[in-house]
């Protein structure tokens, strides 16, 4: 929990005030049995018995105490709520920020659903936990201890029984907590599993129905769900012990108290009213314990969630930035250089890329071609340092990417991923991702170049047309063109297209390539494609096979010398290739 505490720091004041006022309220409550005892002993039984005025006066005092308690309590609730919501908001913001620092490897490992869960359900539980803790956690033990102390002031001998009761109660409470905490964690894991299963069924609905797998899915889901339900019940069985056990303990103490009290009264060292007060203190303890039991369930849940949040929050991003970054020399003619670069994915058996070397000059177009799984995407993901090379160096502008400021590095590069992703908002907002301060004119130029202008013109609201979550209101091809436009808005030094035109028909694809060739400035363009036609005009073509660079050259050179390239080419233009 250590890492989470600092987030409470700005609310230090609230964290003190809230429990403090709760304590005040509790202290006021502790006086109530004393006043009642006074009413009995002095008002009813004492000398001048039948003192009506005294009784009324004490009654007014009780009401006054109640009013004061109310004020304290409201104050406490406010500060607790303020601290809890403030703490959660800060924690959320920090966690979200921390996730933004994770490397691609980290993201691959943890997975989006887990992260989303941490950000939502877990955070809610933690907020409730903090709120309840501030309000009640101190109060309950305080009332228990306070009642014990008050009991001593009433009669030390009779109060000894309270002293024996305390450790026993602590033992029960702590024991139940220790038993349930790890089990709650397991329940949460199983719940995650159910979540994953549900998600999968929503996203994969077409395939599941095409294979008529609905019944199987329901069956396996029900099995998971059954297990979850059983686990929940098991934890419930342990938590349910708390109330009856404490009840038995406190009431046994009551019997002992009455019996030993009887002897003391008999011997004259205790009055009847005092006995009533002692019994009252015992019942106050019992009431607090019931509250404590409920509180502990909330807290154990919150602790389990906090632990899960902490795991993510303390996970150091696997990629570190250099402490004194080096800026690349703008006059360097070299754009991207790979020196004997190898890379592998976390948990994978083999290297995804082995010993690749090449150099792209500024303004060049580099084509990358190769079979499925040959390492094309891996290669381009190394350029913006999404992954680190396991061997060799990747340099941009003559400087190793590992020595450059990450944000500045990435701002020079625009990558269009395989899977087109748009975000909720408007078309304009999506395009502005490329460049925050781009003018409408710049946006339209980029749209024209990306062959996406007609898509936008076809919409009633043009640039202000709303985009739904995940860009659902656009077709695959439209999304791809918009994501290309988004990259072009940036006017990047290095533009990377990771097979990003796969959903485009040939006519559009050809027009796109033409406009990319005519890009102003000295952009270095990397194009991954399955189609030789898309890259045949590249200055250099890298041919990858099984993670290795098997050939490097222009289209004509490769057609002469590279068997693999010939084969790829032939599959697309059967009649053109010379034997």
């Amino acid at each position, binding site marked *: 929990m250590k890492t989470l505490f600092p987030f409470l720091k700005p609310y230090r004041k609230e964290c003190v005030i809230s429990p403090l006022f709760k304590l005040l309220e509790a202290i006021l409550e502790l006086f109530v049995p004393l006043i009642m005892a006074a009413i009995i002993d002095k*008002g009813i039984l004492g000398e001048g018995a039948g003192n009506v005025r005294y009784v009324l006066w004490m009654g007014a005092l009780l009401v006054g105490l109640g009013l004061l308690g109310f004020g304290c309590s409201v104050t406490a*609730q406010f500060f607790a709520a303020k601290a809890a919501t403030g703490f959660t908001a800060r924690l959320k913001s920090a966690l979200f920020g921390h996730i933004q620092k994770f490397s691609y490897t980290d993201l691959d490992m943890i997975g989006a659903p887990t992260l989303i869960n941490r950000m939502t359900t877990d955070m809610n539980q933690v907020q409730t936990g903090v709120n309840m803790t501030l309000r009640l956690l101190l109060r309950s033990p305080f009332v228990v201890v306070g009642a014990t102390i008050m009991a001593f002031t009433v009669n030390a001998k009779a109060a000894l029984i309270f002293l024996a009761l305390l450790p026993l109660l602590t033992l029960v409470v702590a024991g139940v907590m220790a038993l349930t905490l790890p089990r709650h964690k397991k329940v949460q894991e199983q719940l995650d599993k159910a979540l994953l299963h549900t998600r999968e069924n929503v996203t994969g609905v077409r*395939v599941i*129905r095409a294979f008529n797998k609905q019944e199987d899915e329901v069956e396996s889901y029900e099995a998971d769900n059954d297990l979850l339900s059983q686990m929940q019940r098991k934890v419930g069985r342990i938590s349910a012990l708390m109330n009856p056990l404490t009840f038995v303990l406190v009431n046994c103490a009551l019997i002992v108290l009455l019996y030993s009290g009887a002897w003391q009264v008999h011997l004259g060292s205790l009055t009847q009213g005092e006995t009533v007060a002692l019994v009252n203190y015992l019942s106050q303890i019992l009431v607090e314990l019931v509250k404590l039991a409920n509180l502990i369930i909330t807290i154990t849940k919150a602790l389990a969630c906090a632990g899960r949040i902490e795991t993510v929050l303390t996970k150091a991003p696997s990629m570190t930035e250099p402490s004194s970054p080096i800026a690349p020399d703008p006059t360097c003619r070299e754009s991207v250089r790979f020196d004997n670069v190898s890379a592998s994915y976390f948990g994978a058996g083999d290297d995804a890329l082995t010993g690749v070397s090449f150099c792209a000059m500024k303004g060049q177009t580099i084509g990358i071609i190769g*079979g*499925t799984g040959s390492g094309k995407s891996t290669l381009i993901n190394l350029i913006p340092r999404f992954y680190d090379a396991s061997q060799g160096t990747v340099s941009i502008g003559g400087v190793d990417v590992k020595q450059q400021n990450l944000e500045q590095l990435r701002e020079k590069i625009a990558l269009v991923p395989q899977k087109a992703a748009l975000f909720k908002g408007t078309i304009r907002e999506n395009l502005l991702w490329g460049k925050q301060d781009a003018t409408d004119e710049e946006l339209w130029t980029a749209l024209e170049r990306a062959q996406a202008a007609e898509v936008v013109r076809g919409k009633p609201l043009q640039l202000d047309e709303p985009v739904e979550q995940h860009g659902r209101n656009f077709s695959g091809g439209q999304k791809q063109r918009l994501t290309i436009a988004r990259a072009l808005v940036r006017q990047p030094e290095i533009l990377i297209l990771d097979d990003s035109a796969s959903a485009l028909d040939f006519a559009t694809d050809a027009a796109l390539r033409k406009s990319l060739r005519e890009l102003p400035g000295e952009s270095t363009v990397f194009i991954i494609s399955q189609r030789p036609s898309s890259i045949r005009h590249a200055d250099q073509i890298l041919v990858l096979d099984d993670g290795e660079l098997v050939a490097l050259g222009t289209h004509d050179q490769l057609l002469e010398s590279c068997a693999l390239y010939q084969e790829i080419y032939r599959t697309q233009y059967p009649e053109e290739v010379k034997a």
Partner: protein
Amino acid sequence: MKKQNQGKTLKKALRYVGRYKSCLIVSLLLCIISVAATLYIPILTGRAIDQLLGKGQVKFDMLLPILGQIGLLIGINALCQYLMSLTNNRMTFSTVRDMRNDAFRHLQILPLSYLDTHPSGDVVSRIITDVDQFADGLLMGFTQLFSGVLTILGTLGFMFSVNWIIALAVVVITPLSLVVASFIAKRTYDMFALQSKTRGEQTALTDEMLTNQKVVRAFAMEDEVQQKFDEINGRLKDASLKAVFFSSLTNPATRFVNSLVYACAGVAGALIAILTGGAGLTVGALSAFLSYANQYTKPFNEISGVVTELQGALACAERVFELMEAPAEMPDKEPHQVLADAKGQVDIENVSFSYVPERKLIQNFNLKVQPGQRIAIVGPTGCGKTTLINLLMRFYDVNEGKISLDGQCIADVTRHSLRDNYGMVLQDTWLKTGTVRENILMGREDATEEEMIAAAKATHAHSFIRRMPNGYDTMITEDGGNLSQGEKQLLCITRIMLTLPPMLILDEATSSIDTRTEQHIQKAFETLMKGRTSFIVAHRLSTIQNSDVILVMNNGNVIEQGSHEELLKLGGFYHKLFNSQFAV
């Protein structure tokens, strides 16, 4: 949520709980016993105190049996409490399980139009989070509402039996606590609604940004995204503070009313004792009374707490029921007609279809496909190719006209049997969490190891599968983890290769596979397609040149139709499209 709706939702929720009627009855009985025991202990305690009259006046012979009775009651009470918790747990968690199962089952029959138009995160959170919150509220409700109401009734009875005057004083003050509680509850409801709404906004943003985290990173938009998040986060903080604070006012407010009740009971009791000279009320009885005054008001606190909790639970339940009551797909027509092993004659007659009435898509579409024919569908993106497949598979039903398979209208046969006839590979690959093997065997679980490997070899998936850490037993994480798009497509094709269905639908099935591998797979496809009616959507015209019929679609309509040669000769749209792939 309007009052009326709340009532309806409650009824529905109770119907779920109603399945565990026996648990409910047992729980109620245990509750009655436990409450009765709890209430009787103060009376006995009071009696015990009355035996302690003063120095040398303690009646031990009377005291001991009373203490024994208290002991017995403690035992009974503890046992009942424990059993009651167990029963309630069982009831709650079983109800939740049932609800989740039903919701999941309903998910399977929801029309695709629902799932295509609702954010997936929202659907998931209804089934997972909302059901959970409902459970929490429900458990609270059961354990506290029952015992609360019973305690109130029981105490009232006891109090009236001991002394009706004090009891009356207590009863007169109590409604105050209810008034206060309901006043607060009303105010808080709006604040809770605002909190939920803002929270939903935040979840949507989190979902979107975290699933596309890599794009965020690629554009170095971390700061901007964080800003956006913080903006919502700030609003949520304010909304939460209000909701949490105002809802937590209930407790102190009702507690204040309690202290009033307590003071009144004490003063009234003392006055009666004084005025009647101890005849009307003994000290022990007063002590019992005071315990009751405490016990009597506590449930009011709890009940008011439960009301807030239940309100939240009901809001969640309503979201779950909303999903569960979303109209399902039209059920298969009765009597069920099964269409097994279709020959593959497809007739599309006068079909019109659009996703939304305002935007017309396919209109008056006609097509006759002979068994074994290969139909290619080409056209610019967004022209309606995928829609046609949605209709053939009956993911969506036509608005007008009809589609028949082997002369039988597909709307008349069961979806199950219709879909069994098709093998489908989509551009948007989907793999389930599980091993590679499980994913390949999805269409045919009884296939042998040899058959599976043969299929994988035919699709050239075998070599990359072999290179994975555990070969065919490698776990695939959610949505294909670190498989590339192409590898995922190969697995999806292998899946079909193993099933050998009578008909095929390939929607850009090889779009992410390189042309060389594709060429190899093509051979396997050739064998597969021989004698099978196939529908192929493709961009790469090379793969469809030898189709029997090529449909050229634009804006939802078939604008050209014929074989490759015929279409080239026509010199129209297809001609242009075909030549553009050689353009440089």
